[in-house]
């Protein structure tokens, strides 16, 4: 299997060969539930960070015992996976108060699922000097907790090493995004997403090797995707390439995104010199902000515009999961302002699990008719 094929196979929690190999060799795994969790620290502890996903979740009957139907299905699907034992391989799980739904789910997880170590990193909901200090202290605490729980002191040098590994991923992923900016788009958005998501579910050094090789394969293949319109996707947490396939089956090609499982996770490097904890705190606290951050709307608008213009898109699809308050409010404002800038926007509401595809498709079809360039 070539490197590209390996990344496209996109392992998930239920049948992940890297997880199996890691565990078989006696090493341990710590999950993370948000893009504000500094994975480098977990890696520097000799642990495998695993950003939780719940692709393929079809029902939430176990989770609904503890959460309501007016909680978002992303949080409920993660809880469902936990309750049904699919995350039993986690030795620890780091939550973050990214949004209220996940923060609440943490308490339920703590009560009903036996993960050895649970963490909650809290990040202030706005960006200011004191908030930065708070977050920096939270990271120091997290480092200390990892040391206590897993018995390995995390030296500054090992954090620096981890930063290098993770920065390497960031550079490679950025290169993948750059390649998709071309007039001839070398691969579908769904495939690009598979490649990007794989980073969260395998050892990062191995991922870097595979991705470097895969980028070469893509470049030399000379293939490109036929399309009638170039699209960007933004909005709520989204880690399911099938959603992009629906869009691309209708003739569009997704060439970029402003997603927390996508560009927002990988853009913004960590400084490699100086105090590594401070460097991590800086990067994660000040990176392209999630709508959880108050007072940062202008930056998010700017980021969305830059990503859209940079990839020469014909339109943006801003999706949100039902009951996602953070993206719900942002999507409405972004739609108004981006439309005013001359960028067509479609807003879509969806459940985390793929359902009701017909309704989805009808709306995307109409949008494609509006923006198609050929």
């Amino acid at each position: 299997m070539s490197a590209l094929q390996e990344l496209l196979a996109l392992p998930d929690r239920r049948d992940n060969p890297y997880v199996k190999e890691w565990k078989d060799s006696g090493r341990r795994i710590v999950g993370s539930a948000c893009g504000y969790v500094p994975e480098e620290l977990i890696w520097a502890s000799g642990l495998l960070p695993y950003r939780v996903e719940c692709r393929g979740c079809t029902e939430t009957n176990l989770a609904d015992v503890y959460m309501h139907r007016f909680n978002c299905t992303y949080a409920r699907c993660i809880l469902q996976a936990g309750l049904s034992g699919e995350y039993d391989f986690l030795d620890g799980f780091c939550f973050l108060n990214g949004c209220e739904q996940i923060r609440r789910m943490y308490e339920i997880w703590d009560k009903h699922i036996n993960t050895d170590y649970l963490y909650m990193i809290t990040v202030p909901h706005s960006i200011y000097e004191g908030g930065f200090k708070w977050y920096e202290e939270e990271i120091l605490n997290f480092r200390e907790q990892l040391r206590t729980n897993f018995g390995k002191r995390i030296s500054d040098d090992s954090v620096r090493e981890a930063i290098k590994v993770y920065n390497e991923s960031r550079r490679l992923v950025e290169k993948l995004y750059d390649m998709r900016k071309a007039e001839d788009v070398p691969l579908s958005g769904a495939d690009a997403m598979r490649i990007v998501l794989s980073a969260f579910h395998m050892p990062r050094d191995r991922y870097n090797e595979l991705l470097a090789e895969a980028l070469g394969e893509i470049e030399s293949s000379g293939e490109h995707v036929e399309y009638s319109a170039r699209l960007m996707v933004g909005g709520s947490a989204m880690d399911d390439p099938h959603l992009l396939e629906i869009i691309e089956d209708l003739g569009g090609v997704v060439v970029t995104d402003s997603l927390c499982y996508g560009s927002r996770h990988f853009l913004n490097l960590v400084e490699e010199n100086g105090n590594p904890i401070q460097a991590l705190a800086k990067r994660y606290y000040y990176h392209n902000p999630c709508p959880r951050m108050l007072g940062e709307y202008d930056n998010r608008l700017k980021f969305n515009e830059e990503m859209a213009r940079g990839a020469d898109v014909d339109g943006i699809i801003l999706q949100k999961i039902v009951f996602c308050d953070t993206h719900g409010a942002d999507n409405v404002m972004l739609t108004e302002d981006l439309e005013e800038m001359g960028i067509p926007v479609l807003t879509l509401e969806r459940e985390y699990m793929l359902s009701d595809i017909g309704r989805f498709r009808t709306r995307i079809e109409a949008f494609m008719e509006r923006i198609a360039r050929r």
Partner: protein
Amino acid sequence: MKNMQASLGCDAGAMSTKTVVLMDGTVIGFDITRNEGRLVQAIEDSTSRALEMAKVTIEEIGNVGGTGWGERYIPFPHLSTSAISALARGVNWAHPGVRTVIDLGGLSTTVVVLNEDGRVLEYRTNDRCAAGTGFFIEQAAQALELGVEELCPLAQAAPERARISAQCAVFGESEIVSHLNEGEAVSSISSGIAYAIASGAATMLNRVGFEPDLLVTGGVVKNSSVVKALEEIVGVKVEEIRFDPQELTAVGAALLAREKSLE
């Protein structure tokens, strides 16, 4: 003089009204009438049909019990009881061994846990959401252009099961239409609907922490594939109901009215 042995119970539900006439511990009259938006009329019709079947006049009734969403619209004197107590009483009378009953009604799902005397130990009703109720089944059948009664045989014969997330009764319908347009077989969609409803019911049961014997009541039970799917999910056999599944709340209301009069 009134015949003190005869009691009447009326359960004015969200979608239909159920009336029973009890005599010496036997149901001698029973009727279900769809409300069709005219609740008082439905109550009157249902009552007179049940009396007619029992061959008893209203004057011969000793005690009247009323319950259900529309209880306050019952236009004759009656003892009012909550639907929860009425259900528990009716179930305990019909199936004394049952400790948990889940009622899948027109617009609500109710779980009641009772002790051996029929006393309510714990109960839950659904969120303000119609996903998984009788209303949803009717919507679903309509979307498939089928009668509600046709869903069950189709579901039972289905070789496959379509995925219906049914997070919402309204969008559940468009989910079904999506499946149809994708060319999914009507039978597998029917099976998916039964599973989705059972899955919601299982969640309610797990929320309460139920114990067997388990009984399922309410109009939705008439689709036995829902009961089958529920057994599959919770891993517990559901008791075979000995009465019409929509009857027992009205029976309970009649019994409670009679017992009150004897105090």
